[in-house]
């Protein structure tokens, strides 16, 4: 009896290793299955919606491409099927949504590319689908309801007129993109016919979406970044004092305030509101290239942006850069390049207590009959700054509207905080006109970012466009 017991014990001990090995491999198999579940539940969309994925195009044999709608119920893109079955994609707003809605022939761009999978998937009632199947008819693809507002988009489009530039309107609390205009533009209805001409026209680059792909010097809008760097080093804007003489010279390099204006003795708020170049150039040399680089990268310069297609903004200053370049960079000149969308994202994080919401264009997907298939939930992307930093920067930006370079936005029935900029882009001093800002400062509603190429100062060209957009938002 005793020997039998010992033997079974020995056998069990001997099998301990076998059990261990099988448990290990069972875990590995379950890991494989678990990962496949995870992929299908979470990662799947980001892959199948890739513009490289051409699989979904075969869906078009059995599905009529769905509509793209604006959030206020306007049709932005639809497919008309004629009696003989030929399909034609049409864009009722022609040029107005050209870049953001995009096109579906000669490749795909904009929402037509981003929502390709949804537009070619049909969630029609299954009995309808079966009936279509037997009748040999195609199912109708899902409708994509975008976050775009047709009214704001049209206002921004008309306000920009025939000048080159871009306008971005965001909702800072959610990340919804309400409008995105880029000029020069094109008509997506006739893009196939005009393709050669559009592609070869390098002077206009009409196909380029300047809102996300444009690379502009930020001009004085960059003083937001310099100010944040100052705040991070000093903890407060109070106690700052500078005596502006209209120009400042260091190492044989001179920086002038706009028009040679002498601002005299000023505190931080006044220097920011008047966009005093001398004060910020001096501040930049004291903060140093390394500190400016750090803040810039915190604000996503040289970094990935949470967008589908964009160009990275670049900031090249570092600890070993010379004084002249540091002075220039601190006031938004130098080698820094940024897109209007990126400036809108920075502003939106200031308006949202420091948290950047992930910007998005697809609000929801409905089937042809209007039943909901899927809704995008707003999602925080990253905290770019603390709540306190955001509210102090907001104070600075309020000053710009109350008694600074954007005072024409004052007293219009809503409150605005913002920053203007005139970004010189050649030796002769011609400049792009910038404005970034948000309305209803206590509980921000929308963020507007405007650039007008060769528009002069911010207050001349960009601020009036922002004013039109804010007016349209509150009064239309």
């Amino acid at each position, binding site marked *: 009896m005793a020997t039998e017991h010992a033997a079974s014990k020995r056998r069990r001990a*001997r*099998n*301990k*290793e*076998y059990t261990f*090995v*099988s448990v290990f*491999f*069972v875990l*590995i*198999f*379950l*890991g*494989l*299955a678990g*990962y*496949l*579940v995870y*992929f*299908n539940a979470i*990662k*799947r*969309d980001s*892959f*199948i919606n*890739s513009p*490289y*994925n*051409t*699989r*979904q195009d*075969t869906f078009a044999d*059995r599905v009529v491409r769905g509509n793209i709608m604006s959030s206020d119920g306007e049709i932005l893109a639809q497919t008309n099927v004629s009696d003989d079955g030929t399909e034609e994609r049409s864009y009722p707003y022609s040029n107005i949504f050209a870049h953001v809605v995009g096109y579906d022939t000669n490749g795909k761009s904009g929402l037509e590319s981003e929502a390709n999978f949804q537009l070619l998937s049909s969630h029609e009632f299954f009995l309808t689908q*079966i009936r279509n*199947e*037997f009748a040999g008819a195609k199912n109708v693809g899902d409708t994509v309801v975008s976050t775009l507002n047709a009214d704001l988009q049209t206002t921004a489009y008309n306000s920009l007129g025939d000048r080159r530039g871009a306008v971005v309107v965001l909702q800072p609390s959610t990340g919804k993109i309400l409008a995105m205009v880029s000029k020069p533009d094109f008509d997506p209805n006739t893009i196939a016919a005009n393709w050669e001409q559009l592609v070869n026209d390098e002077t206009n680059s009409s196909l380029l979406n300047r809102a996300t792909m444009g690379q502009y010097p930020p001009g004085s809008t960059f003083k937001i970044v310099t100010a944040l760097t100052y705040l991070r080093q000093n903890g407060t804007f109070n106690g700052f004092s500078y005596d502006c003489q209209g120009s400042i010279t260091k190492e044989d390099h001179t920086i002038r305030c706009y028009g040679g204006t002498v601002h005299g003795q000023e505190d931080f708020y006044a220097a920011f509101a008047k966009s005093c170049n001398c004060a910020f150039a001096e501040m930049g040399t004291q903060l140093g290239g390394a500190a400016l680089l750090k803040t810039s990268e915190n604000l996503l310069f040289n970094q990935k942006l949470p967008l589908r297609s964009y160009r990275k903004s670049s900031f090249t200053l570092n600890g070993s850069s010379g004084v002249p370049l540091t002075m220039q960079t601190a006031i938004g000149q130098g080698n820094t390049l940024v897109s209007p969308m990126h400036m809108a994202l920075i502003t939106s994080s200031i308006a949202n207590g420091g948290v950047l919401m992930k910007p998005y264009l697809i609000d929801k997907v409905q089937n042809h009959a209007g039943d909901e298939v899927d809704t995008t939930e707003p999602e925080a992307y990253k905290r770019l700054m603390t709540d306190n930093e955001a509210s102090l920067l907001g104070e600075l930006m309020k000053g710009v509207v109350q008694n600074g370079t954007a005072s024409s936005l004052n007293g219009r029935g809503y409150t605005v905080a913002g920053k203007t900029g005139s970004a010189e882009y050649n030796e002769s001093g011609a400049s792009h006109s910038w404005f970034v800002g948000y309305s209803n400062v206590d509980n921000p509603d929308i963020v507007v970012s405007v650039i007008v190429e060769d528009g002069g100062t911010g207050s001349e060209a960009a601020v009036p466009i922002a004013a039109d957009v804010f007016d349209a938002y509150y009064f239309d």
Partner: protein
Amino acid sequence: MINVIVELSKYIILTLMIVYTFHCFYTVRQPDEEERNELLRQQLILIFFIDFTAFLVIYLKTFDYKVVRFYIEMQIFFAVIQILYRVLYKKASLLLLNNMCMLLSVGFIMLCRLDITMATKQLLVAAGASAVALVIPVMIRKMRFLRKLTWIYAGIGVVLLAAVFLLARTSYGAKLTLLGVQPSEAIKITFVFFMASFLSRDTSLKAVVQVSAVAAFHVGILVLSRDLGSAVIFFVAYLVMVYVSTRNVGYLGLGLVGGSGAAVVAYHLFGHVRQRVSAWKDPMAVYQNEGYQIVQSLFAIGTGGWFGMGLCQGSPESIPVVKNDFIFSAICEELGGIFAICLILVCMSFFLMIVNIALRIINPFYKLIALGLGTEYAFQVFLTIGGATKFIPMTGVTLPLVSYGGSSLLSTILMLAIIQGLYILREDEDEEFEKRKKEALQRIRAREEIGDRTRRF
């Protein structure tokens, strides 16, 4: 109309597969022999209907009479091996046999859909391999000297691998084939035999050092031939076999540390290793180059979703080498994610069956062989499925029994025959044991009777 059938077939195949998977786990737990046989019969019916539905769809989508011919040939093949096993080896594990037929079926379905000439070749190899495999259980029983051929196994392995390294041409960045066959597939078997014959006799430190040296030789040549997948499979089999035979966790830890170290060195030393890793980390970023294959695979898996596009409804041919290393992605695309998960579970039950057999064998040589072959199988499944789904970096190995590839199919069928042979041997041992127990009992009873009688007197 055809589209409705295709659409319905997705759900039919999926339902049958789910039931089959359930059976795999349920059958093992079924103690009653009659019940178990009934379940095994049902499994065969399930396989039959999966094949029937799938090939019907493929025929309806292609109207190619060759599909019908292939289907009939395949059914004959399955029928013949099922009958032969039942006649020749009454004690063989029918669950193992069923699982083999199931996995082969899935492979035949996908290959037939991708390229029918490939499917036909695959069927021929399967038939040939199965014919050879039929004698293996007998050989295992008769050839007791197999255990003593230690250095012959090592010699075969090293010489063949070295020959591949020196003579083979490079394809897809790796040196794999010699005269159309992949010797590394066969060496998987000799390697396990070497390890088992050595470690079943001696597990001293000196012995471990010796087997480690031989194993390092195998793995080293494979790494130099850029056959990373096989290298890792050999390494894991080595590790598991040393650990189980010495029962020393220290070796496992040492091996893992050494393996990780070797991986880091390989990463810095070899460009192709870095490429695989960068394609795994962010395939979209290197889409134009090394990321292309894995991105295509993920497009296929993603487009398939849970229920799949239906047979002949996707475009798996856009994935490079889909028939070999990426067959799993094609399965995901057309038969769906849930079907693929069932397939993973079937592979898992397959592995557990093999370990279960190993557990019951008493002879340490055979015991280690079963475990070693099982480990190789399981880890290969992990590498290929993990690679296709981007769970781990891609290593370029096939999914045993499912992927296209003569050498891989042949060696897997031989492996299974060896395991069947061991299983039959084990059943014999059991019978022997039962018989002796009965005799012993009789003896005791006889003695007791004598005792009773003496007491009475």
